[in-house]
């Protein structure tokens, strides 16, 4: 029974991270209609940056508790990177054929992946200290790190915060207006460029946050970005591109399947996910909550 509970907690933990990545991807697509192939790599940048900062903080003697504040910093770093990328690299391509957008973001992926190697080297970086700073819980005879619960909390908080921003703030109205009809929004005086760069930065922030919160639990390794990209896509296929609920539901489904899969069929866990994605695509091609 308690193993079951542990697995559920693991799934929720993983879902939180996946949700952040996928929601970022979906937000960017929803507002700007572009898909960033380097999105997973931005998640990786968040992981590496945060792990590095935490490492620095530890050597500087900062108590582990305070280092929690570095988590959002890692995310902000990625957001800033995004804020630079969008106007410089992506904006010139909105009017061009979609292949070029894919090629450019793929080029970005290559650049960022190597940039990670350049800045932080090829060896994995850990931030276990943060996880160890929190107590170990006892759940029915089994141990479970409290940190994971915190992550679940952060995931839930992020979902609510994102929903609030999009549906309850003026900025959210601008976002939604621009995503519905860019020309109309511009004609009404909205600064579309500002909306775009903000939306992109928020999307990147979420990816970066995903990386930041996972790194105390899992080391930052090269190649984590690609795996995250593919998983985020499976989430988005299931949930529907451009939908917030879709990202949430998709993340939960993918996460639970993955956890169950790892238990029973570790080698083919990826295949099971693709199977689900394939079935969803057959039945409802735009995803559970998507709209063409």
């Amino acid at each position, binding site marked *: 029974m308690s193993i079951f509970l542990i697995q559920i907690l693991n799934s929720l933990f993983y879902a939180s991270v996946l949700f952040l990545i996928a929601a970022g991807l979906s937000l960017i697509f929803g507002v700007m209609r572009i*898909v960033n*192939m380097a999105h997973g790599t931005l998640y990786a940048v968040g992981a590496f940056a945060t792990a590095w900062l935490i490492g620095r903080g530890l050597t500087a003697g900062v108590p582990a508790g305070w280092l929690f504040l570095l988590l959002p910093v890692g995310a902000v770093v990625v957001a800033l990177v995004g804020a630079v990328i969008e106007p410089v*690299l992506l904006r*010139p*391509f909105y009017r061009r054929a*979609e*292949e*070029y957008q*894919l*090629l*450019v973001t*793929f*080029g*970005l*992926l*290559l*650049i*960022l*992946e*190597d*940039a990670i*190697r*350049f800045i932080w080297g090829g060896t994995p970086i850990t931030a276990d200290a943060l996880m160890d700073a929190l107590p170990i819980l006892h759940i029915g005879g089994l141990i479970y790190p409290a940190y994971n619960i915190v992550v679940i909390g952060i995931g839930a908080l992020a979902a609510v915060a994102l929903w609030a921003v999009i549906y309850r703030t003026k900025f959210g109205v601008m976002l939604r207006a621009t995503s519905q009809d860019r020309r109309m929004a511009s004609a009404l005086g909205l600064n579309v460029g500002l909306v775009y760069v903000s939306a992109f930065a928020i999307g990147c922030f979420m990816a970066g946050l995903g990386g930041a919160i996972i790194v105390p639990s899992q080391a930052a390794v090269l190649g984590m970005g*690609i*795996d995250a*990209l*593919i998983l985020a*896509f*499976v989430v988005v*296929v299931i949930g529907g591109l451009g939908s917030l609920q879709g990202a949430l539901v998709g993340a939960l489904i993918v996460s639970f399947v993955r956890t169950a899969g790892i238990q029973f069929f570790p*080698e083919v866990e*990826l*295949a099971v996910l*693709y199977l689900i994605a*394939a079935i969803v*695509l*057959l039945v409802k091609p735009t995803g559970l909550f998507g709209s063409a």
Partner: protein
Amino acid sequence: MNPVARRSKVPLLAASALALLVLAVLPSFIGLYQTQLLTYGLIAAIAALGFNLLLGYTGLLSFGHSAFFGIGAYAVAFLARDFGVRSMEVYILIGLPVTALLSALFGYISVRHTRIFFGILTLALSQVLYSLTYKWFWVTGGSDGLRVPRPTLLAGFMEFVGAGSFQRFLNAYYYYVLVVFAICVMIMWVIVHSPFGMALQAIRDNETRAAFLGIRIRRFRWIAFLISGTFTGLAGILWVPLNGLTTPEILYWPFSGEIVFTALLGGFRAFTGPIVGGIVFTYLKTYAVATTEYWQMLLGVVLVLLVLVLPTGIVGALSRLTASLRRRKP
């Protein structure tokens, strides 16, 4: 298709014969190392040629072509290790259907979708193959890879043992690959100039209209995918005896990126684009890898620059140049 009269094929044949002649004579002038490099270049050209059937002619951008290259290479490695095969012809004869099978399967899954979903799906499928190859090390040799001994050419007629065999092999293999390359180019040329090829371009340009002409979109895309993967697989088959070793690296996503890059570099809107791209890229890579450890970043930067500045690639730029020069003539 030429409107008024059938365009004479003579200039084209003459130019191709000339190019082939140049390629045939080159080894005598450029030395062994360069000949080897050029062989790799021709192999890359075959891979790119196959890839571009999907991108340039059908409008589908695949990020997972490393899968087909890799399957070709590993098929040869398995044939060598488990069945003691040494004959290049057997490698090709058995390796081709194997890659065709994988292409058919991956294609069937992928062509149900377009654009970004197609791209991600191809990426994901190649990643699955990569991770399986990496994990099942007792089958595939894992990250160490598998060695492939020197093959025999022309149904065992040519064997390369003893003193000076390496040089003899390199020279002979160059011509072997050149012949295969020429055949591939001819086959691909016929395909893209056939009614089928025209239908592919129509699907690329306007899917709705193509459907309204009665063209079966999904099936044609699938066939294009099948051909594309098989060509790239053939490149993998040719590659591994030369390289002597195959590792999971050729299944990893950056390798797919290289294939994409070669098509873009040469120009994916022109038939000869991938050929030029494949050969030029091989040289660029060799020197880039020797220069910097972060050559993947360099690749990315050049890719972005290409898309920004030279989207039609080398061949496209050259043809625009000749066109404007022609206009200047009085």
